[in-house]
């Protein structure tokens, strides 16, 4: 059985001080349903929402997100409290299981309301050991970046280059609010959060929401003449104790990508996939994930990035959208990667469209300290 994405929608990602997070969800839901030609609450059997009670400041944040998705005495609703790519994955599973034919997937987060994310992130570490060290996700990422630098002789300039590139591309993406140019020196000279990560190496916080409509093959063809099929999925955990991991070896990403590729019948992503939308919450992660996906020899991603291999016009375009460093809210992040891949495969990516007319795309989401969990989704143009 094939499962397709028939429509997507997302709000621009910026600050919405006057809105509540489920109101943003509603904007995305309304538009995604309209594009699929579905009335509110009808024509879809299940809803998968993605939100965080911590970032919404509310137990059962899906009361509101479900409500604006049409869950009241209608389609069943379930909340995934992980990165948004996993909500897409669960929607896909629901259709494959035969338990639903059409599924609405939403993701939302208003992280600009949160004054100090590190307080919440610190509670994500185990009680006996790592929490008491005062770690947050930026510090965990810094340890990973240092290990990555040490292993391959990389420099902070390699990571700063990713920021320059991402911000340039972000300017072509109407959903992102990134303005002005930054030089390498400005990035290297920005406030240091935890060596080697500066304020500009980190994904900037944003508010926003997105929605997708998934359907099984026959329904998908009824709802659109240009479906995008989900060809393969994979997800994986790594050990929690940072000391138990070789942080320069993104094992969970490697395994998740392998599962997705086996399912899609792709032997080598560097050859079988035309476009990559990956989740870098910190600049170094773009390079580390590129290497984890096997797109280039280990330790050489920085130099190949400079050569233009991963550009919009290069032979392996990575994040022509501007990626997460262009400013995409957490939780929405992975689902937004799927949506960007969808735009590219449908030829709706506007100024950020890659030139090669891609047929297969890989979308990736990650969450947890130093990418402890990864989710990979392979998509294929269905027309």
């Amino acid at each position, binding site marked *: *059985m094939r499962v397709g994405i028939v429509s997507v929608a997302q709000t621009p990602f910026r600050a919405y001080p006057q809105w*509540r997070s489920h109101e943003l969800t509603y904007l995305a839901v309304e538009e995604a349903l309209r594009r699929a030609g579905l009335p509110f609450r009808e024509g879809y059997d299940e809803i998968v929402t993605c939100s*965080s*009670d*911590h970032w919404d*400041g*509310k*137990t*059962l944040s*899906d*009361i*509101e997100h*479900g*409500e604006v998705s049409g*869950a*009241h*005495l*209608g389609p*069943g*609703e*379930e*909340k*995934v*409290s*992980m990165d948004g790519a*996993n909500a897409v*994955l*669960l929607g896909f*599973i*629901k259709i*494959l*299981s*035969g*338990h639903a034919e059409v599924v609405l997937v939403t993701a939302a987060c208003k992280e600009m309301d949160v004054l100090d994310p590190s307080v919440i992130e*610190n*509670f*994500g570490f*185990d*009680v*006996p050991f790592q929490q008491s060290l005062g770690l947050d996700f930026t510090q965990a990422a810094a340890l990973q970046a240092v290990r990555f630098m040490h292993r391959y002789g990389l420099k902070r300039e390699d990571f700063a280059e990713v920021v320059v590139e991402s911000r340039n591309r972000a300017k072509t993406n109407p959903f992102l609010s990134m303005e002005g140019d930054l030089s390498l020196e400005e990035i290297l000279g920005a406030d240091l959060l935890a060596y080697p990560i500066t304020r500009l190496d980190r994904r900037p916080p944003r508010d926003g929401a997105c929605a997708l409509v998934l359907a099984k093959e026959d329904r998908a063809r009824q709802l659109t003449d240009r479906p995008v099929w989900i060809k393969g*999925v*994979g*997800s*994986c*955990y*790594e*050990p*929690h*104790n940072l000391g*138990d991991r070789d942080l320069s070896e993104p*094992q*969970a990403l490697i*395994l*998740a990508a392998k*599962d997705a590729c086996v*399912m899609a019948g792709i032997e080598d992503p560097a050859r079988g996939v035309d476009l990559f939308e990956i989740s870098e919450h910190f600049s170094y992660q773009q390079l580390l994930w590129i290497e984890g996906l096997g797109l280039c020899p280990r330790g050489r991603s920085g130099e190949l990035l400079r050569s233009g291999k991963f550009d919009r016009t290069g032979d392996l375009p990575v994040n022509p959208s501007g990626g997460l460093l262009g400013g995409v809210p957490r939780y929405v992040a992975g689902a937004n990667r799927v949506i960007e891949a969808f735009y590219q495969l449908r030829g709706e990516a506007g100024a950020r469209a890659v030139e090669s007319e891609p047929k297969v795309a890989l979308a990736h989401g990650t969450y*947890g*300290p130093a990418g*402890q*969990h990864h989710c990979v989704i392979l998509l294929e143009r269905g027309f």
Partner: protein
Amino acid sequence: MARRTAIVGVGQTFHRSRRPDVHIGELCAEAVKAALEDAEIHVRDIQAFVTGNMELFEGRYVQDMWLADWIGAVGKPGIRVTTGGTTGGTLASVAFELVASGLYDLVLAVGFEKQFEGDTRAGLKTVADPLWIRWQTTGAIGYFSRQARYYMKETGAPEEAGAMVRVRLAAHARNNPHAHLRLDLESVEEVLKSPYLIPPLRQLDMCPTSEGACAIVVASEERAARMARRPVWVKDWTSVHKEAIYVRGGRHSVADLEMAASRLFRRNGIQKPMEEISVAEIYAPSTWAELEWLEAYGFCEKGTAWRLEEKGVFYWNREFPVNPSGGVVCTNPIGATGLIRVAEVALQLRGDAGPRQISRKPTLGFSSAWGGSGWTVAHLLSSSKD
């Protein structure tokens, strides 16, 4: 459904109001180990994991990160679903879906709660919409005292009705070594001595706050044929939401319960639920909810549940056993509670429920989970494949 699925192993911890002997990881490991032992498999056989709990109640964040090591999920796929009170039910549904999808043959779901580590009432208070009703919320007790009053008024049930339910559940819990409250309540009079929380709801009418975990192993048809235990087949599942904005203003509604059960019964050709279903494990946080909800699910006519309770119909050794485990009123580790319902029904259908095994020959079982602003997840399990 694309593929048949079956429950091939269940396990739960013992439940107490505090479990200072273990941390969250160890607590979950205890349930996982029990489920794996029941299924007679090793954790490396499991292909995917489903976890969940109340996100805020322990005051912790992304708990699956820490749990990954303790439940054996490292290097494996995993998904985390948190749907409040229905979490346990949703965990089972998602595990069924993962197997039915054809992607995985053996999936483990684990739900837990360790309420003493955080502040449940503070967590629960933030359920209410901050703009409209947060200032007037009183946690679960306010809701269920109103529900009790409503049921008494509508059906003419006396105060003794709730107490009769409590006596039955106490008798059931005494048969269940895992139950949290195993009280020697023999008579209605003893229950009526219990202090009011908010009248007419008494302390003994309401569920406790428990710490504990539960896990189940779900297998595909081919895999189930090679397992140690008799498979318990999954017939169907559903979830129905009733959202906050619609229940504002105090109008009492059980539409979510009615819709979930009628959907399941209609889809599976069940005409007379009380005759065709041999055992029900329902998620009812108070004695009064249990009465009203048995009616809402369609097991008996409106206003008759308390009459049937009077006749003792719902005892484990009688015509229609309800909550032979002692139910939620005796044990409530929230994120695990819904999953315990599924696990208990599975044990009954297998005939492995020990002293609490129902007398009736079990063929079909019903389990439910409840939470949110009036959400229901319900499952239908069967001892036979078809």
